[in-house]
């Protein structure tokens, strides 16, 4: 498959980023007016667009990573400022993650929402959400980034509010408050920076003029940095700005998965990486003296998130706090400024996405099939839903960082990076966090496999299709479209861990990016 | 204040104008027009009676048209000095006539509205009760 795709004619390359954005946008536009009951057509459009996107990404990988091509599309937007879509390795990395997980999450959501209301609305906004994510990853300058970043805010609102209950509307409102506030901070930062240096094009090693600005006007530069990172930190759920994330759990499970693994949280972190690497550049940032505070903030968020996760009984809440903690690994990695740590941070963008999406898929399965929402309700679920439980276990091990999962690779990189950096104390943070991770995930795993399902509520047995032919009367069969994506992502969690040394594996691409930035 | 500034703005040629001693005819009309307009405006803002308001609006209109007429005579004066014919500036006169027509049109519309409103206030309460609130409460009750 890859062989024929490798030969993209050179003149078509610049159009590809635009095509990628338009692909999911078109899907959204086509889905919105569909009547509720045209299930097949809707699924068809969704899956076609998602598959096409994954194929395009695969086609782009060799050209961008090996040949160094930078397909670029631009259109005039405001006087002196263009909308620029450009594919560089980091963009491709993030877009690849979102495309792949969009495909899997769509399959999952098709099964999850069977029989629910407002499906056209849901999948329409779902596609818009991915449009925004792809736009964010391909943005070639700050304005374009901002446009898609705000688009993401707006289109996730109806997804979080999807159930239409007062609780979900409240969560959505709080989410919107946080996100709009953060977006506004970013906007002010962008306006300010644009006034100094003109349209801020992303460039490796820092945008044009920013280094001079840092040298000549450190105070405004510092404030701009604070505005940008602070604003992005809202979506990235950095410590004091994380309040919306646990509340957003009321959203449907596929939305939570998307929010945590690809779209919202990741968009914030991705933005921080962009600002650090391609707007300010690591040297200018080091000159400003912002790296150490950022590092400390990230480290604190990691421990705080883990500690809070430990206290949650509800599975989804526990996962939410775990996200707060895990996502800060990325910031931690890039703030340590050496190839090893940066590689670890960037690769964790993808690794965390895959692992967290697995866990949310499984949490959704538990909730749907056996109505298990809290840790104690999961007692003995391993016997009733062995495949789901196995996938969950793989994801949890990944989060803890046990070999041979993807999480181990990230933590290993981060750990060696920490030793090589001027902040060896970070290693203790990593170890502490891993212990906490183990402390809140292992009891779940234990409950799944080793606890007795003694007090199973008979009512919950009607949840799944009772497998009469199965030996165990407690065994329930999970819906395929929910189970398969979970198994695939669980498999991927293992695969990217085991095969991390292959060419074009996430780790190699991440190293390539890190060397590009620092080397 | 407006009176002062307008007189100050226009009376640049006659220094004694502000003291009211040696006013030319044109300046008299300017002052008078301003006074009428201001009185009309004040009355319009203070009264709650709709008909009185409409009349006050017309008074304001007449005051402003007087100001414009005075301005017309003034620019005609300067035209006189330049040697063209005597009389009143035609453009500003056209402005005044248009203003009059438009004020009449508005007054007519206002009168129709007032008649409807007061017609309802006189007979509408019982009608309201009968119709069971097909229409919502009037904004006027605020």
């Amino acid at each position, binding site marked *: 498959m890859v062989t024929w795709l490798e030969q993209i004619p050179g003149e078509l390359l610049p159009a590809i980023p635009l095509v990628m954005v338009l692909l999911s946008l078109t899907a959204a536009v086509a889905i919105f007016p569909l009547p509720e009951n045209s299930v097949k057509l809707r699924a068809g459009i969704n899956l076609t667009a998602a598959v096409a996107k994954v194929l395009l990404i695969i086609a782009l990988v060799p050209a961008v990573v090996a040949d160094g091509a930078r397909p670029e599309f631009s259109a005039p937007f405001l006087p002196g400022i263009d909308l620029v879509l450009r594919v560089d390795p980091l963009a491709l990395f993030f877009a690849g993650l979102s495309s792949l997980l969009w495909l899997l999450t769509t399959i999952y959501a098709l099964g999850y929402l069977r029989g629910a209301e407002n499906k056209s609305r849901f999948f329409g906004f779902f596609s818009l959400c991915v449009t925004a994510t792809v736009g964010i990853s391909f943005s070639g300058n700050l304005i374009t980034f901002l446009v898609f970043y705000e688009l993401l805010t707006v289109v996730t609102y109806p997804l979080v509010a999807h159930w239409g209950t007062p609780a979900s509307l409240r969560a959505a409102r709080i989410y919107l408050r946080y996100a709009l506030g953060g977006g506004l901070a970013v906007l002010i930062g962008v306006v300010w920076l644009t006034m100094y240096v003109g349209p801020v094009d992303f460039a490796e090693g820092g945008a044009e003029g920013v280094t001079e600005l840092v040298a000549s006007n450190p105070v405004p530069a510092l404030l701009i940095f604070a505005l940008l990172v602070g604003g992005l930190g809202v979506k990235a759920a950095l410590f004091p700005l994380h309040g919306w994330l646990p509340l957003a759990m009321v959203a449907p499970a596929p939305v939570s998965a998307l929010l945590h693994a690809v779209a919202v949280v990741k968009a914030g972190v991705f933005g921080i990486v962009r600002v650090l690497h391609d707007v300010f550049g690591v040297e200018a940032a080091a000159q400003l003296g912002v790296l150490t505070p950022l590092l400390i903030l990230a480290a604190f968020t990691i421990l705080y998130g883990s500690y809070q996760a430990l206290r949650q009984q509800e599975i989804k809440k526990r996962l939410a706090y775990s996200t707060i903690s895990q996502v800060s690994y990325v910031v931690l990695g890039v703030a340590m400024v050496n190839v090893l740590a940066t590689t670890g941070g960037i690769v964790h963008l993808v690794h965390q996405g895959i692992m967290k999406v697995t866990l949310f898929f499984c949490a959704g399965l538990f909730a749907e099939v056996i109505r298990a929402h809290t840790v104690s309700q999961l007692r003995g679920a391993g016997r009733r839903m062995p495949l789901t439980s196995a996938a969950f276990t793989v994801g949890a091990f990944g989060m803890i960082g046990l070999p041979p999962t993807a999480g181990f690779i990230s933590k290993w990189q981060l750990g060696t990076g920490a030793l090589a950096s001027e902040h060896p104390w970070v290693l203790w943070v990593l170890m502490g966090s891993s212990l906490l991770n183990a402390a809140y995930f292992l009891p779940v795993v234990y409950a799944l496999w080793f606890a007795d399902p003694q007090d199973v509520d008979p009512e919950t047995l009607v949840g799944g299709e009772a497998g009469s032919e199965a030996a165990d009367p407690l065994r329930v069969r999970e819906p395929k479209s929910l189970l398969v994506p979970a198994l695939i992502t669980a498999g991927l969690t293992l695969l990217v861990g085991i095969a991390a040394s292959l060419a074009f594996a996430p780790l190699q691409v991440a190293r390539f990016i890190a060397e590009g930035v620092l080397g | 204040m407006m009176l002062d500034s307008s007189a100050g703005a226009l009376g640049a040629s006659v220094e004694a104008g502000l003291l009211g001693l040696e006013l030319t005819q044109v300046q008299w009309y300017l002052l008078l027009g301003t006074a009428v307009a201001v009185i009309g405006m004040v009355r319009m803002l203070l009264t709650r009676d709709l008909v009185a308001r409409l009349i006050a609006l017309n008074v304001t209109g007449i005051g402003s048209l007087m100001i414009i007429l005075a*301005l017309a005579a003034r620019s005609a004066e300067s035209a006189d000095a330049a040697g063209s014919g005597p009389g009143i500036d035609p453009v500003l006169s056209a402005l005044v006539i248009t*203003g009059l027509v438009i004020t009449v049109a508005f007054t007519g519309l206002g009168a129709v509205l007032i008649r409807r409103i007061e017609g309802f206030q006189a007979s509408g309460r019982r009608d309201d009760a009968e119709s069971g609130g097909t229409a919502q409460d009037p904004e006027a009750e605020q």
Partner: protein
Amino acid sequence: MNAPMSLTLFCLGAVVLIPLLASALSVLLGSAARRVLGVLTSAAVLGLSTPILVRVTSGETLELALGGFESPLGITLRADGLSALFLAMTAIIGAVVSCYAAARPAATGKRLAAQAVEPAGATGGDHRGALPQESPAAWKSGHAGFWPLWLGCWSGLNAVFVSGDMFNTYVGLELVGLTAVALVALGGREAWAAALRYLFIAVLGSLLFLIGVALIYSVTGTLDIIDSGKAISELAAQGEADLAAVVLALCLISLGLALKVALVPLHRWLIPAHSSAPSAVSPLLSALVIKAALFVLLRAWLWVAGPLPELQILAWVLAGMGTAAILLGSVMALRQSRLKPLIAYSTVAQVGYWFLLLPLLLDPETNALEGQPGTALEDGAVLAGALSGTVALALGHGLAKASLFLSAGHLKDLYGTDEIAELRGAGRAHPMLVMSMGLSAVGLIGLPLSLGFSGKWLLATSAVAAGHYWILVVLVVGTLFSAAYLLKAVAPLLVMSEDDQTALSLPQAKTHSDPSDKTLTGKAQLAPFVLGLLTVLTGFLGVWLTGVLEVGAPW
């Protein structure tokens, strides 16, 4: 695409005359024929506006002396970039709202009719005879008087936009004001008092404006906008001579127009007028009628007066009022419990944005960032940026507010109430309306992509370049507030169920007996949606808009 010049000039006259003729003609027709005529006219105006826009975009200012008379007594029509943009916006919104009104006659107002079916009465008709209790009269929805009034109003709007002199501007403004008052009065009994209040304000504003115009004429000897601008700048170059009169004139003009655009603290009339007007009228009032006064204000400040340093105080006073408008309007919008008053207060708040540029006009030096590495803006760009930002905000507001008022009015007509609490869950039955409201909210808040965002960006960058950082603060605060009150308006519509699983069920209003009427009602929801979509799509037009505004610009 480029029509010959003579034809384009014909269009310039025709955009004013054709709606006027159609308005007169429609008085003679029955109500169904009026609807057809209305839609045809709006198509015609849309068609006539296009060549004007194309011509102006290509860089020409169009000028036509009607009937061959030259100034001062002749009528000169002139279209530059500013005219073309406002003309185009009016054509689009006017056409969409006309289609809506044609598809939903019930949205055009309420009339008193005897129980027996009676043909629709003309506007000025006296219904009072039908009032007393012995005659069984009832309120019927739909008022055919909408069409002559709205077409007349449209003619007046276009007259204001293409007028080359202050006199015709005045006549156009009066036509707009008179018809707008009558349009409000179509809203039935509760609208009459609001209409009357609006009438007082409109007349007062026009009188002040008229005195201002007369003063300018007495100083410059001409009513032509460009000529008087030249004369004033010559006077300013010579010395102090009669500038005090110009300042006084501008004070009066600004005050008069501020009354008409409802700038805080002169805004009180707007709320009842806009919220009690019929569903097809509120969008026109808020999106278009107010813009006529704004247009004249921009003309007066930029084309007639130019940057006179004597205007400094007035500019700051108006900008202060604008800031107050943004704050007060937003706070009041947050406190409303009904949809239409909330949207009306949002208009009050948005009006404030259009006055922020005035201090920039008088102080357009890009000195704030001088000597910085790679400062982006050169001198002179500040004026252009501030004006394009303000125009983009105004046009974006037009599209978004028209869409918002249409949606809100539609809901009010269907459910008989616009209490937000009672409309909880209405989004389930009308996803398209809620979607339109969402899109227009994006435009009003100024999120990217939307014309509102482009406008705020342009205004903010010019403000920063000129060192007016306070504008940035005002924009930020205004943005936060607008997000808050629009969320308050839209979010409850999305409620699917209460805690006890009961959803909203309001009795449907009487209009739905006829199935064909129902399909038309469904189709009519497209109107706000189209406008909402345009709000967002026009976000790409920032560059183009700045270019068009350069045509015939005063600098």
